């Protein structure tokens, strides 16, 4: 199971992004500045944006899901119960997992942005997909929810998960690191070696690397461990 980007070029107006590489099973983090083309790349990888050049090949992928940055973009029904049914999910379980205090008849569009994001992510993460593309999953979430989401994403043990984000503080366990820099997607490799190549690494991670205490991963536990170097 893999997704191959072969000289992929996505273009919009005067802006363009070049992408080459193979995404295999595991959790991938695609980092890049705001406006660097992460969302467009995610759309192209899901097959919803036609590239100006190159190809996207999905091998052995039977089920695909794209979670866009704005949760309201996924709403197609007028009540929470109907919306969950459109995902083939039971709304009582989703309301519980999203920690919402509403009933099934409430409109999903009446929820706040943060609540809607939690609701949407609960729907997405309730099912297994061969390819899961999540664009800015941490936006509109507070720190507690970000950590909760990271635990859920880290728990995914099969398929390809690709997280597109400019997040700089809280991350899930990541296997492969990618970075969009100067209009090009660069494969930085596996952890922890990839960390030294990361241009937009969070300040704390950079400081730890400078001090020779490179963290094993990006999870809060790995960062704490590197900072304290507490070995059991």
């Amino acid at each position: 199971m893999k997704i191959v980007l072969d000289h992929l070029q996505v273009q919009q107006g005067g802006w363009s992004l070049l992408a080459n590489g193979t995404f295999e099973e595991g959790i991938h983090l695609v980092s890049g500045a705001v406006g660097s083309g992460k969302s467009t790349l995610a759309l192209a990888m899901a097959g919803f944006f036609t590239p100006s050049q190159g190809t996207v090949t999905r091998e052995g992928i039977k089920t695909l899901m794209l979670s866009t940055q704005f949760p309201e973009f996924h709403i197609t029904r007028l009540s929470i119960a109907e919306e969950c049914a459109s995902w083939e999910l039971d709304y009582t379980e989703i309301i519980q997992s999203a920690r919402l205090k509403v009933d099934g008849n409430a409109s999903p569009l009446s929820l706040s942005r943060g609540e809607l994001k939690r609701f949407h992510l609960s729907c997405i993460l309730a099912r297994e997909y061969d390819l899961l593309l999540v664009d800015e999953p941490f936006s509109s979430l507070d720190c507690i929810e970000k950590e909760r989401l990271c635990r859920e994403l880290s728990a995914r043990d099969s398929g390809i998960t690709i997280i597109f984000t400019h997040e700089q503080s809280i991350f899930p366990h990541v296997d492969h690191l990618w970075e969009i820099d100067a209009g090009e997607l660069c494969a930085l490799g596996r952890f922890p070696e990839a960390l030294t190549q990361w241009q937009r690494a969070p300040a704390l991670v950079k400081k730890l690397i400078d001090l020779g205490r490179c963290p094993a991963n990006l999870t809060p536990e790995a960062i704490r461990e590197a900072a304290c170097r507490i070995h059991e």
Partner: protein
Amino acid sequence: MQDPRIRLASAALISVAAFISIWGALAVFLWWLLFTPRMRRVKNIRVITGMLLLIGVIAVLIWISGGDGLSYFLRFGVIVLVGTWLYTEQKPGEFLAVSVWAGKNRWGFELGMIGECAMQIAELLLCDYARIRIAMKLKGENWGVRTLVPFCLILIHDALMRADEIAELLAVRGYRNGGVCCPVFCIGPLDRVSGICAICVFFFSIVPVSEFFILSM
């Protein structure tokens, strides 16, 4: 057509002409063929096809019930083409410029701003349409009567939310009424000719066809 004043006036005249009679609709169609880029600049051809199909279905129903379905299809089909041309040619700020030119800085500005907001919402509706289609594809949902109602209600809801946000933004910025705008217009080489032809088409549609010919037995 570069001058938005001539474009809007022409569109208004030929729309009325197309509505009045089938001969007017045919004359407008000829005008559309001669003076517009036709379908070359249309971004979303599916929407236009859908609208024409809908008019076609209504025309068939009229025909079945004994009415003149062909006339309905021709007249409203041509109006859709004129509307499409007007929409694709429209640039941001033009509606405001024309309104201020016609109605000055108080009422003209108000009307122009409402028109600009409406144009912006129409543009965003197309974006909403595209993203709901993606959401439905991701869920594996198909088009049908069951999905059509929530689809339309979500579009309306989003449009109303945006209108509310724009109103709040204007209020926060201290807007009460009117404004100042100094529009500048550029007249293209064919603008006057197409404008005069639009006036001719309008008169052609309101004068009975028999008046143009000497009918003798």
